[in-house]
């Protein structure tokens, strides 16, 4: 998800800084190999200038962004991110159950006060954590607790006061998650915000057709305009300070569209189209292959690797689930699997051909 990166400028965030460090480390390794094989021999003064130039960059980036400069550090960072995420989930659950344990002992006014104060305090904790760390492990953790507290806040206010459920809650939850994501450059909260907005837009689309919003999942087509809208966000709103973010909008937007199409290709009854289930499913099977191919092409053309992978994955899922539908019952199992294997070989040949064409085009 590096599409919008401006390669020449100084890193604006930790992800860019990490990429710069990785480039330097790869360059050093390649230089070492070239020298060992006798292909290149830098004069000693140039070598020293180069080494000190790179060392300065590494020191500066480590100081500013706390980047990983070895493989071990990278593995440690990944482990810490996972621990941070799991810790956030556990703490959010703890907040939820703690409130359920005590709320019956509190007056209504105190309940409201605690519910409203909890997300504000968690945001304050985020700020404190962000000032003390360069890699946002604790900031992410506090951010997810803030989001969970806000969900609990609105959910329980609705419960306490008998308020009719509304999809607007999804909008404010999404807005809150996005404010935190952009405020602290947090990917996990960005995804949370995107999912909330996706649900809000899909529910709102459903209500335009007269549907009661809580049943918006009964018509998967509601997700298609919402997904396309989110996909288009990076094209409308530039993300110079957040070069990693557009990829998330694109992948999750298209994921919603492709999932809706895949669902309808197996469940025609869930469509708005006034046709029999079989006809609807046929239309969505064709649309599913066409959309997956278009997504693959878009990803290749714009060099959006996540989008390309998403399109390929859906193409294969669409293909194999339909094969199962069509052939599993009447075909001998050995023949079914043989056919799957042959189709995989065919796909490999096709992808090989496309890859060769791409190489020729870029040569």
């Amino acid at each position, binding site marked *: 998800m590096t599409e919008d990166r401006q390669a020449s400028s100084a890193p604006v965030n930790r992800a860019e800084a990490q990429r710069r460090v990785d480039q330097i480390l790869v360059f050093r390794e390649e230089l070492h190999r070239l020298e060992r094989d006798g292909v290149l021999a830098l004069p000693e003064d140039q070598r020293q200038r180069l080494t000190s130039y790179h060392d300065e960059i590494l020191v500066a980036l480590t100081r500013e962004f706390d980047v990983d400069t070895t493989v071990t550090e990278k593995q440690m960072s990944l482990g810490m991110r996972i621990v941070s995420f799991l810790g956030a989930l556990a703490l959010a659950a703890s907040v939820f159950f703690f409130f*359920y344990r005590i709320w*019956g002992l509190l007056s209504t006014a105190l309940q409201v006060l605690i*519910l409203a104060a909890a997300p*504000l305090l968690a*945001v304050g904790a985020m700020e404190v954590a962000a000032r003390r760390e360069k890699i946002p492990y604790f900031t992410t953790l506090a951010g997810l607790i803030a989001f969970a507290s806000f969900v609990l806040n609105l959910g329980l206010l609705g419960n306490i006061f008998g308020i*009719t459920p509304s999809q607007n809650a999804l909008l404010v939850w999404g807005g809150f998650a996005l404010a935190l994501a952009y405020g602290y450059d947090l990917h996990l909260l960005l995804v949370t915000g995107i999912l909330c907005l996706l649900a809000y837009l899909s529910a709102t689309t459903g209500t335009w057709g*007269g549907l009661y919003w809580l049943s918006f999942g*009964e018509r998967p087509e509601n997700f298609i305009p919402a997904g396309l809208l989110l996909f288009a966000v990076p094209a409308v709103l530039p993300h110079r300070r957040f070069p990693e973010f557009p990829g998330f909008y694109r992948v999750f937007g298209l994921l919603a569209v492709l999932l809706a199409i895949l669902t309808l290709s197996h469940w025609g009854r869930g469509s708005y189209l006034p046709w*029999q289930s079989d006809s609807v499913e046929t239309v969505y099977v064709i649309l599913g292959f066409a959309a997956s191919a278009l997504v693959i092409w878009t990803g290749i053309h714009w060099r959006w690797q996540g989008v390309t992978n998403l399109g390929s994955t859906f193409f294969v899922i669409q293909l194999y689930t339909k094969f199962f539908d069509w052939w599993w019952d009447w075909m001998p199992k050995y023949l079914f699997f043989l056919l799957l294997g042959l189709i995989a070989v065919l796909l490999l040949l096709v992808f090989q051909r496309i890859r060769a064409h791409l190489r020729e085009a870029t040569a």
Partner: protein
Amino acid sequence: MMRPRMWAAMALVVATNAVVLAGVAYNRSGEPEATVTLTERELPLAYAVEENSGLELRLDWRLYRRGSSFPGEPGPGWFHREKLEAVGYDCSRPLTDPSARLEYEKALPRKAFAVLEYEGAAWRAMIAEAEHDRARIAEQIGRQEATRKDLEAAEQDLDRLRRTSTRLAAVDVGLAPAALRSQYPDRGKYLIVQAEVRLTVVDARVEKNGVRHPASLRGVISSILVDHIVVPRDLHSALDFVRNDRRSFSGPHEPRYRVTVNYGRRYEPWIHAIQPIKQARAGPERTQ
């Protein structure tokens, strides 16, 4: 110095809470839209996990239709084509048209207002139907068309209807609550609540006596949108004796408390008062 976007996040939390609480204040301002005193029959304790210290009551209601309060059963007779049109469904095409049938089968749930009648004609009609059933089964036993067990089941149904199950019956639906209120002006007997309604197609059928019923459209109230009401802390003590009573979740029993519920301008409920009911030895005809 905090980042501006953090102020945005905090402002969003504060503003959202303010809007929600303003809505609550509006709902509870002025005279309640309806005030009705129900009992444990209509508002039993809601199930809660052990660690939940809160207390909620569940609004138990039934469609005006004999038998079960299960909301998924086929719609009652009064929720017919005209009522479906009144809540926004287009039912102009005949069911004999196959494409129309497909359209009806794909119809989506809608939001509407439902009228719940408390201890009224609908409940009495249900009792009358249950009495009629019992009498019919008693006659059938003589002709060996029914068994003693069938009769016992019918008597239990009738007894539950009279003494322990809810007397709150859905009797009407519409999109305009004001129009419904003018039609059902008794604010101590009729509640207007927000609900989700669905259109269903009832297939053509032939009865044992040969009478044919063509396929028809029926409406169903699939859920009441606010069907759990939280008991405020200062009223918990009125229900302590119920919480400590083992019968709370152990099948039908006589009601042990009365609850006065208000519905406000936004048709959202809150509990006004709870009083215990002094238990008395009751005969089968006693209602509370």
